[in-house]
């Protein structure tokens, strides 16, 4: 029983990572109306930047901050250089370009850091025992960080003027334009937010596992599955679906094997698209 619970807790952690990345994906999808396939690579950027910051200062807090800043920057630069030009074109254009951006990011990281794996050299801490359950203090910190990040995102979305304008644009881009919302600023803020959230997911994933140029790209299918399951454009849905997916993957691992984790996400994605394409909480239909 405790083994099962530990799997569930571990799933919760990876689920929060998936959920954060899905939140980054769904934020952009809800407003810019395309699936940013470079979301995973934004994660990777965040993880490498955090490694730099952590290596220079030895502080994980500084490392995380550097990672977030890098993610926000990459998001904004992507928007300014590429996606801004592609606004109003068929969504395939932006989708293809986002694949391209992902490739470029991986290429740069591959040239600079090589394809080897790196780790955050965090001190090992003895797990806490609650009854016969072992809890890693790091897991707890990751969980708390993720929850705080979510809180901040929701505060931004619901309690700041720029967040309200983001939601207005998401609801009805035409109406938003008519009512005098400057789309440029809103979009820039949106890409910064999405990039930072993705980067945080990357940092947490890097702490949990290892950092490599492919780490984020390999998360794309589960992340997309979570965004669809949660309902595209629905932030809370993305998180809940991410957690659900993480826990399901972890619990299923003893049965389907470690390698088929991704296949499981794929099957869940297909199932959701077939049975309930608008997801658990969604408004945007996946079917035309």
């Amino acid at each position, binding site marked *: 029983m405790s083994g099962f619970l530990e799997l569930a807790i571990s799933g919760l952690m990876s689920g929060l990572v998936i959920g954060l990345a899905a939140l980054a994906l769904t934020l952009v999808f809800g407003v810019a109306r*395309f*699936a940013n*396939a470079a979301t995973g690579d934004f994660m990777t950027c965040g993880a490498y930047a955090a490694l730099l910051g952590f290596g220079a200062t030895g502080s994980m807090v500084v490392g995380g901050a550097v990672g977030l800043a890098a993610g926000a920057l990459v998001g904004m630069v992507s928007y300014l250089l*590429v996606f801004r*030009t*592609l606004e109003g*074109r068929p*969504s*395939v*254009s*932006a*989708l*293809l*370009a986002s*694949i*391209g*951006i*992902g*490739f*470029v990011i*991986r*290429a*740069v990281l*591959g*040239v600079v850091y*090589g*394809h080897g794996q790196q780790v955050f050299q965090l001190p090992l801490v003895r797990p806490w025992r609650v009854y016969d359950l072992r809890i890693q203090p790091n897991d707890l910190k990751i969980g708390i960080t993720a929850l705080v990040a979510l809180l901040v995102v929701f505060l931004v979305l619901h309690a700041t003027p720029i967040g309200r304008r983001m939601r207005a644009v998401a609801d009805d881009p035409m109406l938003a334009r008519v009512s005098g919302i400057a789309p440029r600023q809103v979009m820039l803020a949106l890409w910064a937010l999405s990039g930072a959230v993705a980067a945080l997911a990357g940092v947490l994933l890097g702490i949990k596992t290892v950092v490599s*140029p492919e780490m984020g790209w390999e998360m*794309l*299918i589960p992340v*997309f599955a979570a965004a*669809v399951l949660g309902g595209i454009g629905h932030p809370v849905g993305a998180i809940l679906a991410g957690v659900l997916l993480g826990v399901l993957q972890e619990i299923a691992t003893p049965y389907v*094997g470690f*390698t*088929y984790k*991704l*296949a499981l*996400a*794929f099957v869940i*994605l*297909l199932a959701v*698209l*077939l049975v309930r*394409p608008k997801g658990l909480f969604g408004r945007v*239909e*996946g*079917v*035309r």
Partner: protein
Amino acid sequence: MDAYLIAIAIITAIYVLLALGLNLQYGLTGIVNFGHVGFFCVGAYTTAILSEHGVPLVVSFPLAAVLAMAFAWPLGLVSIRLREDYFAIVSLGFSEVVRLVATSERWLTNGVQGIAGIPKLFAGWLTGPAQSYAVLGLLVAFNALAILAMLRIVRSPFGRMIEAIRDNEEAVKALGKDPAGFKIQVLVLGAALAGLAGAVYAHYIGYISPEQFLPLITFQIWMAIIMGGVGRISGALVGAGILMLFLEGSRFLRDVMPFISEVSMASVRLGVVGLALILFTMYRPQGLMGDFTRK
């Protein structure tokens, strides 16, 4: 040098076959297939595994195409009605799952070690350069057949309908015709070409492993058709040529600049493909050779 050129021609012809399939799907029908390499992989493994068990090439070759089609059909059934960007990600996921199976099911595919010693084409009859010429001849024949079939399709009411679907799917529905049926057929046809390409590839290279079937291949083919001309049959030829020039050119670059490691060069190639995708979708979506409206 001669042998080198033939080798280049053979690989280019394999890319042409892949590009023809993708151009039929995306250029003519508007299907955003991000999982093309999955069908290529299915074709390659099908014929490799069958050959291991002594099945003759005349049987394993067609079966490679048929099996690729057999994978495309259910994928189309369940997901072709989705929005195009959803389908794109789903097809990408499909190709990754195919690669995952090739990696994990060791009893069938020998896992990451891959399958070696796949018999060469015409091995019983020909050797040396003659054999390479024969392989090239076979590929040219496959490509010619594929092009003839596509020309026939383009000039038929079926071709008119798939182009109508690409231009406006809702309007097709409003006329009482179901776009999904047409798109599934096109997906299956394109998969057959990719499966065939995979079969030739496996027998030509003689060795296959999962890491030869990364999504990068899919997007190299995308780069090829976008550069060559989306929706034009000649675009597949031009694009495959450009792709080959680029891939081989980067190899020469390494001969000139040996201080660049092969691993870095792989990253550079990835970056160039990425940049090409970005710049062409931004500035020249109609390709190097012009718009497909001028047939």
